[in-house]
């Protein structure tokens, strides 16, 4: 089935998937920024996270046959997974990995939704090609060379004087490529001052205005943005930065490197600099070897980090939508290194305000050889852009040009209850 945009919207309304979907011209014509909209936080699990080991169909015989117990979510024993309700595949009992217990709690609290068998329809099993395509919003490699902007960059409305976008990296992730004034730093907790203060800023500003190279532009942009953020960081009377204290019950202990990225987002949200989107990377998911232990520690970090961040944002009264994505899932069959190789269909998550959580979305293709992609990998039954589209819409972000080359092939998933205004 191939739907054009208008049919997609009509179908969405008819299905009641997007309850407050009255303003159709919004999506068709692009939208202005509105007050009260959530911060959209995109967490990219780099390396191809093994969705089948995060939420697994524990009692499925193909699943059991393909992997040793330490590489799947089991339904018995001391490390049994955490069962949850889902309607995607009534024949299977899906469970969360035991170290994803905090995510299971969020799922039960209907804050978190699972998207399964999702990803790129294209056949690539290369991390780097897959990431490049997803971050540009493509599924055809031939368009890579001619697409010089990221899907989020095309969707975010930049406003002069605002820091609309944050990338918790040394330079912006590709999803934010193509817009100005993206704050890209791994961490803001130690401040973002410039050495030797105003002498440096003044001198570099005047020198950079006299040139036009990308380095001159980058110098100017960095001076402006770093200064805005540095002034916004809370300091005591002596000028010392006040240590960050999370709101509510949030505790980031055990979330590893995610802590500095996630708390940087909350700090920026609290600063009121106009933050609209944030991108965070979480590496270490390329588990070709020793997956049992690595998955355990990766999932602990991720679950603790996301739970703390969700609580921190809620308790400080900031709306948030968190999208957790990865470039592909991993091979159904384990290798003899105690790991799994690159696969196809993956598992994503959405959590936060307005999410119709406690559901697993998509279409479960099954794990028997005949229905596996190329006979080896979980098939992709939902194009990842279906999720990006719904997430952008729910986050009240313009999406006129977000995915110019794509038309939805399936009805909306209905991940969100309503749209933030």
């Amino acid at each position, binding site marked *: 089935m191939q739907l054009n945009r208008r049919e997609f919207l009509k179908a969405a309304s008819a299905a009641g998937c997007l309850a407050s979907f009255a303003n159709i011209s919004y999506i068709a014509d692009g939208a202005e920024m509105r007050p009260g909209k959530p911060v959209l936080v995109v967490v990219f699990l780099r390396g191809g996270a093994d969705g089948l080991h995060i939420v697994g169909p524990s009692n499925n015989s193909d699943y059991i046959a393909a992997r040793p117990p330490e590489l799947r979510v089991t339904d018995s024993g001391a490390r049994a997974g955490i069962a949850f309700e889902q309607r995607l595949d009534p024949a299977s009992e899906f469970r969360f990995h035991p170290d994803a217990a905090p995510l299971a709690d969020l799922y039960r609290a209907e804050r978190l939704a699972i998207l399964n068998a999702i990803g790129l329809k294209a056949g690539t099993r290369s991390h780097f090609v897959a990431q490049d395509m997803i971050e540009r919003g493509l599924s055809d490699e031939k368009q890579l060379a001619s697409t010089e902007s990221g899907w989020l960059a095309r969707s975010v409305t930049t406003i002069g004087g605002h820091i609309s976008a944050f990338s918790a990296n040394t330079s912006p992730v590709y999803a934010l490529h193509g817009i100005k004034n993206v704050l890209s730093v791994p961490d803001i907790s130690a401040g973002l001052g410039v050495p030797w203060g105003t002498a440096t800023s003044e001198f570099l500003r005047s020198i950079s205005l006299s*040139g036009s190279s990308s380095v001159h532009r980058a110098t100017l942009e960095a001076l402006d943005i770093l200064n805005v953020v540095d002034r916004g960081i809370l300091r005591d009377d002596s000028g010392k930065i006040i240590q960050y204290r999370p709101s509510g019950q949030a505790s980031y202990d055990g979330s590893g490197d995610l802590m500095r990225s996630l708390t940087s987002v909350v700090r920026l949200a609290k600063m009121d600099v106009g933050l609209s989107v944030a991108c965070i990377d979480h590496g270490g998911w390329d588990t070709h070897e020793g997956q049992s232990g690595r998955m355990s520690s990766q999932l602990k970090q991720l679950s603790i980090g996301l739970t703390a961040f969700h609580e921190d944002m809620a308790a400080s009264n900031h709306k948030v939508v968190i999208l957790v994505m990865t470039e592909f899932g991993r091979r159904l069959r384990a290798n003899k290194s105690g790991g799994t190789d690159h696969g196809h269909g993956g598992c994503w998550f959405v959590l936060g305000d307005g999410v119709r959580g406690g559901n697993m979305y998509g279409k479960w293709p099954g794990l028997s050889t005949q229905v596996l992609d190329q006979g080896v990998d979980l098939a992709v039954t939902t194009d990842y852009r279906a999720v990006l589209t719904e997430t952008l819409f729910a986050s009240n972000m313009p999406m006129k040009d977000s995915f110019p080359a794509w038309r939805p092939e399936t009805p909306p998933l209905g991940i969100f209850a309503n749209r933030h205004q």
Partner: protein
Amino acid sequence: MKHSADLYALSRLAFGPDEVSADEIARLSLRGWLNLQLHPDDAKDAVFAERVENLKFRIKYNESKDWSAVDEMRSLRWLEAPIEKLSELADPDKPIANQEKSRPRIEVIAATLVRAVYSRWQTREVLCDFWHNHFSVNAWDNHVGIALPVYDREIIRRHALGNFREMLEAVSKSTAMLWYLNNRSSRTGAPNENYARELFELHTLGRDAYLNGIYNRWRDVPGALNGKPVGYIDQDVYEAARAFTGWGLEDGSGLGGGLKLPRTGRFIYVESWHDNYQKRILATEFDPYQPALADGLKVLDLAAFHPATARFLSKKLCVRLLSDNPPESLITSSAKVWTNNKTKPDQIARVVSHIALSKEFAQIRKAKVKRPLELVASYVRASGFNFSPTEGLISEIDASGQRLFGWPTPTGHPDAVDYWIGMNTMRRRWSLIAGLSENWWGTGVFDALAPLSSKEITAERFISYWLEQLFGDQQPQCSPALLHAAGLLPGSVINNPKQACRLVGLLAMTPEFQQC
């Protein structure tokens, strides 16, 4: 005054000009200088040898039940060590502090900084940096880090200007790569595909030759039916993974029947781990039951000599030495030199020479930016102060986005201007320059007044001297702005060392000094 053509050449074929290299290139011309550089002789690198010999690096850890506390300035002891000796650090039966296990990595980083600043064989160091990123391993994993001195010395530096096919084989058998891309644990039956995939995608044919999005069946790949496929698909990865089963390490693995491999860290081929059956890789048939190693070696031949590899590597070298978008003409001609010399022992040196002496190399300037390591080394070389690397400096380079020998994925650091001018890196560029100028990390005192003999030096003369040191005959027009920013009136006398080094530091923070 120094010619900008020479200075730009030295900013790309060396870690920037210093007195020796600037003089040498002016005397010998680029061709003569490069010819020397492409035939490095370690016996003639006395300055580096003396500095690394005298370098002491802090090591500090608390006592535990198994060891006593250590806090000392220690000489480098692992750089020349054999793998068997280094592997003792990985022995799980011996309690060893983590700081001792990470010491080989830290020593290689320290030596890399000393070489970048002081080695006479600058072009080789530039190529070592290139190959370390091309064959990237993450030495923050201690198993890899322990093997880093051997990887740096025997694999990367030995072959940096040599023959690619030989280098590829050395990498494939190296302790560092066998750990990093897991081939040491790959076994027949369900092999680990990590190495095989990155061998094609990152080390040889390149991602442009990965055609899985287009072709599901090997016969459909153009050229395949003539045994000359233009690219590879997943089936080639699967089969190549089978070919490399049995390529392992003496890492203590069990062999069955209670037997175990020793823990020397040496390469070993284990026949019983190898998948002996017939294979088809890059449209080439592999007969069953080949002699030991033959399957893997044949894959290395197919990959190293593939036309896509010639193009991929030639382009990558042009990107390193010229611009993110090098001219097609130069890529093509370099690939030709690459292929024509594919079995020569100095294949890589010939390609580098072809690129460096091309008209395109002379014409294209300022298209790249220095990465933090290059920024640091070029600033130290231009300012000429007595420099030693320290942990503090290494941390700052790390925080700037260049974690040496520690890029988390096997791609190595991106060689793209955009990555290196992100806000974090821009800010850290300034702090690297400020920190070196004011000796924040104990790297050495920079006395910017020392080279100027006169006591009564005006700000204008001071700035003009340092502009020439940093930029030669192509200087940014920044003298008035600098005076203004520093609150100096025209004609002011510069005699405060702190003010002096800040003025030079500000010049090195300009966009112009970042470019190369």
